[in-house]
């Protein structure tokens, strides 16, 4: 009697151990085996900064003809629809008169050149972006490098951001943009947008990610300087240091990252 109970317990113990290791073994192998977890990485060429910014040197611009290639480069690369009707227009980068771009600086006897000069305006990539605060779905957010970006997948088209933006940098798709994009210039690398979402300049986030400067900078023939505002050694800081610059509606405290040399 005593003996068989002992044997039974031994066998039960050994089998329990066997069962235990049986369950454990595949896991042990799986975690130390060749199969790795899938992962993510950045392109090794990606341009990075603490805070991206731009200086637009208006001395290098004479007329709308100088701005056209810059604006077209952006429009083409981002599949921006061409809608003539002002109310339905989509704008990422466009031209504006001095008195509208800088309403508080409209002096009475304004310099002739400045009065007639077309100014290039775009999203200011504000430090304290009011649109980010206004967005109820976090579709608009600010990256660590200062870029104020839109996640079109989350935009519900409420347009609070448009009301919040003091620069008119945002456009709403009242119409299906598909119908207004020229087939010859369609860029299959970048998704278009759809009726019912807001859109704006993305500082070419998709280009920075693969090591290219923004399209407008490339097309500007030196009129736009792009770089890291926080890097005291950068070209943009050198330019800011040696020239007097202004920013749009600075008194509002949004902290624009676009500077203008007048």
């Amino acid at each position, binding site marked *: 009697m005593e003996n068989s109970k002992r044997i039974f317990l031994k066998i039960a113990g050994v089998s329990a151990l066997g069962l235990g290791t049986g369950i454990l073994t595949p896991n042990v192998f799986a975690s130390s085996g060749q199969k790795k977890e899938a992962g*993510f990485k950045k392109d090794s060429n990606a341009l990075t900064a603490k805070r991206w910014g731009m200086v637009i040197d208006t001395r290098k611009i004479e007329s709308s003809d100088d701005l056209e290639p810059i604006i077209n480069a952006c429009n083409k690369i981002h599949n921006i629809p061409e809608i003539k009707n002002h109310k339905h227009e989509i704008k990422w980068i466009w031209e504006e008169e001095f008195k509208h771009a800088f309403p508080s600086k409209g002096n009475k006897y304004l310099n002739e050149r400045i009065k007639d000069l077309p100014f290039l305006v775009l999203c200011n990539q504000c430090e304290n972006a009011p649109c980010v605060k206004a967005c109820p779905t976090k579709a608009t*957010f600010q990256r660590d490098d200062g870029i104020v970006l839109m*996640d*079109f997948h989350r935009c519900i088209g409420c347009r609070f951001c448009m009301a919040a933006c003091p620069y008119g940098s945002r456009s709403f798709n009242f119409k299906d943009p*598909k119908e207004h994009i020229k087939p010859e210039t*369609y860029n*299959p690398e970048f*998704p278009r947008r*759809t009726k019912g979402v807001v859109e704006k300049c993305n500082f070419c986030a998709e280009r920075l990610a693969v090591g290219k400067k923004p399209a407008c900078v490339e097309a500007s023939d030196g009129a736009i300087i792009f770089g890291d505002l926080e890097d005291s050694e950068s070209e943009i800081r050198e330019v800011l240091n040696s020239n007097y610059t202004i920013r749009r509606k600075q008194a509002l405290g949004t902290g624009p990252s676009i500077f203008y040399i007048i």
Partner: protein
Amino acid sequence: MNDKSKIIAGLVIFFIIFAFPIWYNMFKSKPAPELTLTEKAKAAKECVRSKEYMTKNHMQLLDVWRDKVVRHDTRVYVNTEGKEFKMSLSNTCLDCHSNKAEFCDKCHDYASVQPYCWDCHIDNPKEKNDGKQ
């Protein structure tokens, strides 16, 4: 008590209507569609992940991809084999599966799923397109 036949007839009609979804689908339902792979996909042999994983999880994978790209500025995916892919719906998935109609759509039609992605993401990135699709 003479209404017995009427009640039975009523019950029969009720059950026929009640069971409509069952018998309707009995004749309607089709076997899962045969999917065709493009030459490019055949040459690659493998999808981004295993076939089982893709069949079951491609929607979650795409969701992770877009979050990584748009919100976390990370554009390269390294799969379990260590192979790298640019995370792009139109330019990666549809690069291999350029026969969207015979691949994605065929299965989605069968499963009654209508992804709205193609409102913005081009579905024929390789063709000289008119941007309208």
